[in-house]
């Protein structure tokens, strides 16, 4: 990799937002120090690098921190423009389309999905599930338009949207294991189902995505903790 570049990723193995950055760094062939944070006991480095949000991921490049996963992806693309493939195309309109769908994934897929699992009431969870599937349907259409018959949202090559969505794969697989439901159903969303298989085969995906079994274990443990906390608060 480029000489003299110091890249440190402050992350947490289960976080898909952290996985996003690992995917991008791997696609570009950039080596980095993988710093695992204990989110229950955040390091001084994390707190001083991201004082506003105090969250992972943070990419520290030659001592300077960059925060927010999609912003980090664009930073990597721009700071290492000559190295490896580009995540964003050069055409302004195609760049806008990519940015639009990357934002959509976080606002309309991830946010409701989190609500589906961590909502406080059954109504909230149910609403989250409905919104998640509505977003998946929308993304099937987006993939059809963006791929133009090729394999990825980026066309022939993996792009910003592929990385943004691909970072969720271990969690999508974990959800299938735990609930029996495929979020990218091959009958309802054939393009996304095929895309998921294709993306999983990438070297970068194998390097960056956490093991599904480990994610399942983590999710079950977290559900148990939430349930215990709910019982305790009910008993107050």
């Amino acid at each position, binding site marked *: 990799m480029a000489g003299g570049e110091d890249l440190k990723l402050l992350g947490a193995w289960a976080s898909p937002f952290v996985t996003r950055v690992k995917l991008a760094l791997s696609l570009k062939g950039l080596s980095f120090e993988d710093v695992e944070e204990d989110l229950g006991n955040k390091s001084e480095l994390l707190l001083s690098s991201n004082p506003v949000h105090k969250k992972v991921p943070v990419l520290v490049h030659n001592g300077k921190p960059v925060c*927010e996963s999609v912003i980090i992806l*664009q*930073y990597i693309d721009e700071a290492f423009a000559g190295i490896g493939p580009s995540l964003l195309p050069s055409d*302004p*309109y195609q*760049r*806008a389309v990519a940015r*639009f769908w990357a*934002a959509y994934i976080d606002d309309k897929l991830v946010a409701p999905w989190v609500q589906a699992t961590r909502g406080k009431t059954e109504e909230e969870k149910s609403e989250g599930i409905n919104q998640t599937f509505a977003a998946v349907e929308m993304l099937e259409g987006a993939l059809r338009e963006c791929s133009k018959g090729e394999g990825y949202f980026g066309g022939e090559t993996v792009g910003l949207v592929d990385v943004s969505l691909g970072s969720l794969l271990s969690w999508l697989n974990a959800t299938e294991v735990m609930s029996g439901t495929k979020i990218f159903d091959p009958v309802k969303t054939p393009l996304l189902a095929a895309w998921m298989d294709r993306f999983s085969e990438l070297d970068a995906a194998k390097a960056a995505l956490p093991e599904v079994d480990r994610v399942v274990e983590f999710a079950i443990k977290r559900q148990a903790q939430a349930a215990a906390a709910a019982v305790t608060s009910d008993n107050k």
Partner: protein
Amino acid sequence: MGGEKKGLVLLDFWVSPFAQRCRIALAEKGLVYESLEQELLGDKSDLLLGSNPVHKKVPVLLHDGRAVCESLVILEYIEDAFPGAAPQLLPADPYARAQARFWADYVDKRVYSCGTRLWKLKGEGRAAARAEMLETLRTLDAELGDKAFFGGEALGFVDVTLIPLTSWFYSYEKQGGFSVEEECPRLAEWARRCGERESVAKVLTAPEEVHDFIGLLKKHYGLE
């Protein structure tokens, strides 16, 4: 569907701070465009629904018939599509660009939604929104520091993102019972400085009109 019209068309709404971001950027860069006022509280136009089927919202920038949606995506598009149109709102250096995007994202995620909770909620909800709004404004005040603009010596991406929301400060102050001048004097001074620019003065809604509009929304939502 008006699709192949040449040039720039902005699907607009008079009080939308998100549409105003685009109008300020276009004005600063001297780019000519047509503003098409949209009906949002009634029936949305076929043009709007066809151009933004995903969100059905303004602003939408149509460029030679192709639609770009979401205000910050539009701002970046304007930068990319018109590289010769000075001033550049984003700096050239990748790290500085990342910082600008970070703060624009912070403004975009925090200010308007928190402000909405300030006027929609009562009791504990409103108190929480008030605390969050104060924290947000103080954080922005600290980030601005002694600079003339968030972009440094010249207006930049973050400034354009936040400026239209300054028209809403009066309403937030009334709902929250605080004064931006007292809590964040540098931010208040920055708002005045920006307001003196022609591109901003021509575009921003008067604070009292925003306040009246919120009154209208409250009735619309049955909150009065």
